[in-house]
């Protein structure tokens, strides 16, 4: 087992140690497919959350991702855009080892999370998933659980029983998800009693309660109304101070509004990744320009 994963286990017992990652400003990762990321560069791993090298992914014979190489900077928001079927969700699910859960799915290549190979032979997928939280398109609070239980489920099912710690995490996670004020008086009500937008924020709180390093969001607002969407986007701005966020979105305005970096995927390939302002104003690639200006997709 690698040191970081051991540290993670220690943290889960409530002895959270100081995390050894740089919370400062994100670096300008102007990575393009033509310039492969340098694996194992120790000085960069402090600021690079994910380092993806020559990633290929398949569903049975169908190639969903081909030769994706990029870096995702830490404590910043990286949006992944592209037309339906371009592999953006598959890419996201490779980052927390959810891709392999689908029958017939496999992948090749290397993904490093803060320098550590998450597909290494000794690495337990469940521990990777605890470091890399995920929020889904459709909000999915557990129907048998109350609001508070939904928040603590990840901790409880990993053996944490300490009541004071759980209560503390409930409040902290709900506050981070900007839901605490709305639900603090009805924590024992079913999670499904909340509105759609609240349910999605509850799911974000649930993901935050296990204190991941990264939060993946797969079109988190696409099923919500504009006001709930706005709340989620404001929340993303708050969360990026502490978390690395990777968000898949169909909505280019959303990518432009709330991300620092944008990656454009097309037909399973990474076309371009750059700072969001540049991607939307002066992209380096013709295909990107066509897509962001609405000429196709």
């Amino acid at each position: 087992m690698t040191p970081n994963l051991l540290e993670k286990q220690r943290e889960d017992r409530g002895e959270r140690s100081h995390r050894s990652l740089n919370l400062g400003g994100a670096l300008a990762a102007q990575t393009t497919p033509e310039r492969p990321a340098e694996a194992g560069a120790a000085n960069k791993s402090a600021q690079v959350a994910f380092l993806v090298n020559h990633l290929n992914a398949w569903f049975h014979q169908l190639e969903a991702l081909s030769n994706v190489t990029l870096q995702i900077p830490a404590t910043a928001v990286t949006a992944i855009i592209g037309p339906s079927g371009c592999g953006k969700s598959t890419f996201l699910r490779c980052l927390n080892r959810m891709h392999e859960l689908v029958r017939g799915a496999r992948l090749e290549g290397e993904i490093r999370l803060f320098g550590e190979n998450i597909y290494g032979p000794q690495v337990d997928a469940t521990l990777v998933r605890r470091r890399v939280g995920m929020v889904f398109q459709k909000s999915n609070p557990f129907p048998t659980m109350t609001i508070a239980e939904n928040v603590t489920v990840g901790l409880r099912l990993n053996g944490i029983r300490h009541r004071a710690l759980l209560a503390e995490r409930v409040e902290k996670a709900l506050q981070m998800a900007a839901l605490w004020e709305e639900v603090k008086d009805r924590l024992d009500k079913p999670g499904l009693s909340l509105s759609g937008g609240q349910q999605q924020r509850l799911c974000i709180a649930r993901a935050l309660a296990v204190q991941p390093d990264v939060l993946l969001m797969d079109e988190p607002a696409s099923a919500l109304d504009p006001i709930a969407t706005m709340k989620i986007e404001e929340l993303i701005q708050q969360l990026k101070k502490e978390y690395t966020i990777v968000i898949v979105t169909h909505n280019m305005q959303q990518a432009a509004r709330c991300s620092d970096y944008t990656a454009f995927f097309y037909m399973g390939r990474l076309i371009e990744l750059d700072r969001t302002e540049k991607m939307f104003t002066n992209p380096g690639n013709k295909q990107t320009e066509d897509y962001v200006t609405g000429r196709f997709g």
Partner: protein
Amino acid sequence: MTMRVNLAYHRWRKLKSGIMSVVSFASAVLVVAPLGFVLFYLIKVGAGAVDWRFFTQLPKPVGEVGGGMANAIVGTLVLLGLASLIGVPVGVLGGVYLSEYGGEKVNWWIRFGADILNGVPSIVWGIVAYALVVIPMKGFSAYAGGVALGFMMIPLIMRTTEEVLLLVPNGYREAALALGVPRWKVIVLIVMKTAVKGIVTGVLLAAARIAGETAPLLFTAFGNRFWTHKLSDPIAVLPLQIFTYAISPYDDWHRQAWAGALVLILMVLAINVGVRFLTRERFSGAER
């Protein structure tokens, strides 16, 4: 334009519609009618013999009037318990495998097998239990009856468990897995917990289904006119007792057979009502 309707044709169409709805209503009544007749007749004939003694006394020796079926009622419950010890764990775990683990091809064969087993005549299960338990143990026993009924429960419970687990939306599995919860905990504490009412319903319906089985018990549990103190001895069961009494030449036994049939059907009915009560609110997991 709407007023210019062919009146004769319109009337004929109304008539056809009326006839068809009467016919389908009559068919629906025919479906429920036997239940009403059976219950009515059983109550009319059997209720007189159902008294306190029926539930508390052993059968009287031949020639003496009175007595009850206390041992057979307890025996039925004992056999249901024994059968559940086999049928519930194997059936539920099999259903979990089908829903959560198995590959497409393997699942196809397992489902196919289970559906064939559901159609196996119940007396064949009696023969299986006879060969597996009665012959090695050199005698009829409660164990043998429990094995025969337990085997019958397995495919019933397996299929219903699989169906209710598949009703749990995949989003819950993914959400839990994405929190870093190990797969077995996701299955037990999220998926099965969400579907628990459906699983219990399947188990109860399987129990109701086998509670009235007679054929598989003929040469396994065998029946007993006394209390059974060891599970390795033959045991009295309601359907067997009813059968024995019904083919006897004594009027008093005939009345007791009716009473036994009434008690048995009320037990089955009670289980079904219990199931209705459980499923009164839709399973919370299935509504999205």
